[in-house]
Structure formats: C-alpha cells, structure tokens
C-alpha cells in the first residue's frame, strides 16, 4: 500500500493579517502576502469595492475581525462569526452594486450560510445547514417564478439541483475516502510494527524454547527474559530514564539471566543519570551478578539498587554454596579486578561476605553533587 498522504487538489493558502505592516490593520498586506501578489493591488481592489455601495469597507472590517494575525492568538469564535457576517454583508452589497436583484442575493446568502453550517461534523448542524440551503433554493425558485416567468425559474432551479446532486456526493466521498485512507494507513503501520516486534521477540523465544525443551533452567530463563522485555514495551516505566542507572541495571540483569540461565530478581529504588563512575558501578554489579549466577549454584540471584540522597548502594545476593574469599587464587580476574579494582578506581567500595548460607556483594558509591 502506498503511504503518500492524499491531498486535496485545490487548497487555498491560509489568509493571515500582517499586523504592523499595513497602513491600517494589515489586512491588505496580509492577504497580499498569503496570495503572493503586490499589496498595492489588494489595496486598490478594496478601495474600488468601497465605491460599490461601501462593500469594500464592510469587507475590510470583516476581514479584520475574522483573520488571525500572523503572530498572536486566533480570534475568538464570536469575533470570527461577526467577521463572517460583515463579509457576507459586503458580498451582498457588492452583488447589488453589480446589478443582481434581491431575489438572487437572499437565496445565495441562505445557501452560503447553510453550506458553512453543514461543514461541522455534528449531525444536527448538517441537518440545519442542509435545510437552510434547501430553503434558499426554494426561495430562489419561488421569487424568480413570480418575476421572470416559470420557464426561467425551472431552468435555473434545475441547474442548481443538478449541481447539488452531482457535486454533493462527490465532495462527500472525497472527504470520506481521505479519512478512511488515513485510518487504514495508521492501522497498517501499527500492525506491521506490532508484527515486527512479535517476530523479533516472542516468536524467536518460542523457537528457542522448542529447541531447548530438554533444559528447564534455560527455558525458564528464556521465558523470563521475554516476559521482562514484553512488559517493558507494554508498560514502560515512566520513572526510568533511558540513560540512567535503573535502565542500565535492568539491561545488565537481563544479560546475566540470558548468559547464565539463572533468574535475577532485581529491585530498585530511585535513579541517577549515568556517568563514568556510575557506569563502573553498573559493570561491577554485573560482574557480581554473573559470578553469583555462574559459581554459587543458587537458582536465583537477588539484586537491590538503592539510590540514596548521598550514596548509591547495590547489593547482589545469592543463597548458594558460598566460598572463602581468601582462598580465591590471585589470578582470578573476576573479583579482584572487575569488582574491587573498578569500584576503587571510581572512588567507591566493594565488600564481600560469604558463608555456607550464600554470598553477598555490597557496592557503595558516593554521589557527586
């Protein structure tokens, strides 16, 4: 399906008032600017119309009331309505000046008002507007029938009704088509986005689950990761900033779960923006979570991120077999370098307690003000 937006072939430029640029209220200057013609031409037109029974003056006043200034608030509906009435009077005066009779002008005014009203979206306005237009047609037919004879009246009313019958449905269909096309386009965009998301995440996971069906731990971890991802998409956490500690820890916990197949129960309060030091803290915490998942033998790792007023603390705990921190060979990179070294370079501390009941790593980092 093509995605180029449909445009009406004829669109009038939006008229505005150029305040401060004209001699009076900037009506002529504004209209000239919107239509891209010489302002003098517009001013001349208004001046000439002013001689046609004062139509130009009424039109100027109406335009001043109805047009929005280039900068500043749009006029109130009341003011606009007043403006339109003045414009209509101007048109009527002008038509009379050109020799049209009242029998044409009044029906035309009724039809115009009806069409304007019917442009609203509510059903009541449509009905009232169409009735006004119909009354206009009838009055026209009636008056011309008495003045100019029946033949001419039938002829002109036939033309009017035919025009209405042809143009009405066409305009109606055009508007409806544009609306439905827009709705369909938005819907199809939404659907393809949803399909892409489901394909990238849920379907992939289901495929993996089928392949790894023999390994319940792996399946559980896959399901958990998928759940977490889907949930963060469906119910985004408004408190978590994309570039913050909270979302970085979410990602780290999800990665550890995925790599080692052990669920990480992450609890966090508060958030701070990421900088080099906070990033080091996240990396140290990630290493601690990965160690717990890899070596402790526990079926779950708990992590708690507590952002205090002047200190950030992260606790990583498992209920695994525990180990003797002193007995870890010096070459073991994980704790010495990835946790302790990182934290001390960032100006924080890492404390490790381990017993037969499990291990807890406590990372602390003062917040910089």
């Amino acid at each position: 399906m093509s995605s180029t937006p449909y445009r009406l072939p004829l669109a009038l430029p939006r008229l505005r008032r150029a305040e401060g640029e004209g001699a009076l209220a900037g009506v002529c200057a504004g209209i000239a600017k919107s239509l891209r013609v010489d302002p003098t031409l517009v001013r001349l037109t208004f001046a000439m119309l002013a001689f046609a029974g004062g139509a130009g003056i009424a039109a100027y006043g109406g335009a001043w009331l109805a047009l929005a200034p280039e900068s500043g608030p749009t006029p109130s509906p009341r003011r606009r309505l007043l403006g339109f009435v003045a414009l209509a009077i101007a048109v009527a005066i002008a038509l009379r000046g050109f020799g049209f009779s009242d029998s044409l002008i009044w029906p035309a005014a009724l039809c115009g008002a009806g069409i304007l009203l019917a442009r609203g979206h509510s059903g009541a306005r449509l009905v009232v507007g169409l009735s006004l237009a119909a009354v206009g047609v009838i009055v026209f037919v009636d008056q011309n029938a008495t003045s100019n004879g029946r033949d001419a009246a039938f002829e002109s009313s036939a033309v009017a009704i035919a025009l209405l019958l042809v143009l009405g449905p066409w305009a109606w269909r055009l508007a409806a088509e544009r609306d439905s096309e827009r709705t369909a386009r938005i819907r199809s965009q939404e659907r393809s986005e949803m399909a892409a998301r489901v394909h990238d995440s849920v379907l992939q996971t289901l495929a993996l689950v089928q392949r790894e069906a023999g390994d319940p731990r792996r399946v559980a971890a896959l399901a958990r990761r998928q759940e977490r991802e889907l949930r963060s998409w469906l119910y985004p956490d408004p408190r978590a900033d994309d570039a913050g500690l909270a979302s970085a820890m979410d990602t780290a916990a999800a990665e550890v779960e995925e790599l080692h197949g052990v669920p990480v129960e992450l609890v966090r309060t508060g958030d701070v923006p990421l900088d080099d030091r906070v990033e080091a803290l996240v990396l140290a915490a990630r290493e601690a979570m990965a160690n717990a998942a890899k070596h402790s033998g526990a079926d779950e790792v708990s992590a708690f991120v507590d952002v205090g007023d002047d200190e950030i603390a992260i606790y990583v705990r498992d209920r695994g077999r525990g180990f003797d921190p002193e007995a870890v060979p010096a070459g073991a990179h994980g704790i010495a370098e990835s946790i302790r070294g990182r934290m001390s370079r960032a100006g924080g501390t890492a404390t490790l307690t381990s017993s037969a009941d499990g291990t807890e790593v406590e990372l602390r980092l003062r917040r910089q003000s």
Partner: protein
Amino acid sequence: MKRRVVLVDDHDLFRAGVRSELGDAVEIVGEAGSVAEAVPLIRELDPDVVLLDVHLPDGGGHAVIAQVAPERPGVRFLALSVSDAAEDVIDVIRAGARGYVTKSISGADLIDAVKRTADGDAVFSPRLAGFVLDAFRTGVAPVDPELDVLTTREREVLQLIARGYRYKEIAARLHLSVKTVETHVSAVLRKLQLSNRHELTRWAAERRLI
C-alpha cells in the same frame, strides 16, 4: 485446620496453575474472574484469604477490597500479580491487602505466604519492599509527617527485604526476634494504609459503601 481461600484472577489458565501449586495445603472454596463476580462471592463465602490479581477487567484488585473489607473485616487479601507498575501495587496495598507477591513465586513460598496472610502478618516480597521505599521517599503516598515517616529500623528492615533476606535472616542480622521483624513490617503496612485513609473513605462514601 486448612485455610479457606478464594482465588480472583481473570485468567483461567493461571487460576488452574495456582490451584495445582497450592494443592492440598489449602482449601480453595471459590474462584472469580472479575470484580463483579468476586464481591458477592467473597461476601457469601467469608474465606480466610483472598488471592487477588492486581489487574481485573472491570477494575483493579483495590476495588474488590474497598467493597468487601468494610463488612468482612476478617477476610485478608494477598495481591498476586505480574504487574510491574508501582502505583497499581501500592493502590492495592493501600486499599488493605496484607502483602504482594509476584506470580513467579514458587509453590512452597506461595503456601507460606497464604498462611502468613491468614495469620494477619504482612507478606512483603523484595519487589514490594522496593516499591514501598520508593513511595515513602518520592511522596507517591501523601505523607502525614506526624504519622507516616518510616523509622530508621523500619527502613533497615525494608532494605533487607529488598536485598532478598527472609524474616529469619533479618532477625539474626539486626539482633531482633522474628516477631519484632514482623511487627516492623506490619507497622510499615499500617502507615501506608493510613496515609490513604481519607482518600479511601471518600472513595467508599461516593459509592455508598459506608
């Protein structure tokens, strides 16, 4: 004596799962899938514990509590949900639930949680502890300074729960009895619920419940 439990969740499959996990440890006397179904059912059965989903199609779990609790003070509610939104969980707790556990909880832990809820204890999962710490700090709860500020001890207990410690471990670490830890947790729950007392009263009055 077996605890009498009512299960309120709109997913049949999930209810079946909970039923089989709870097994013979408790007696499931009724099930409901919506607020409209749950309220008359709980009034009629008067169970010990209601396992309550935070999200229901015709309103939250808090709506069930608000409609039932005033006339059935003996019924205790335990929220059970996959929901991660802190506000939803806090709403249910403030309405009067004795605790909140996530749906990934193991069968044995769930049985334990039901028993403790029936005994009137508070059941705090690590996640709920985190939510509550957040609520008191960021002012999600309209805090009455006289009443609603957590004591240092209560905060310590909550932080340890959030770190994944069980009540027994917390007691050992803080040199307290398990009973004292439970008292602290119940006090936190009470503060959270009282902080919302006026709002809750208004809510109930609007619906002519009291």
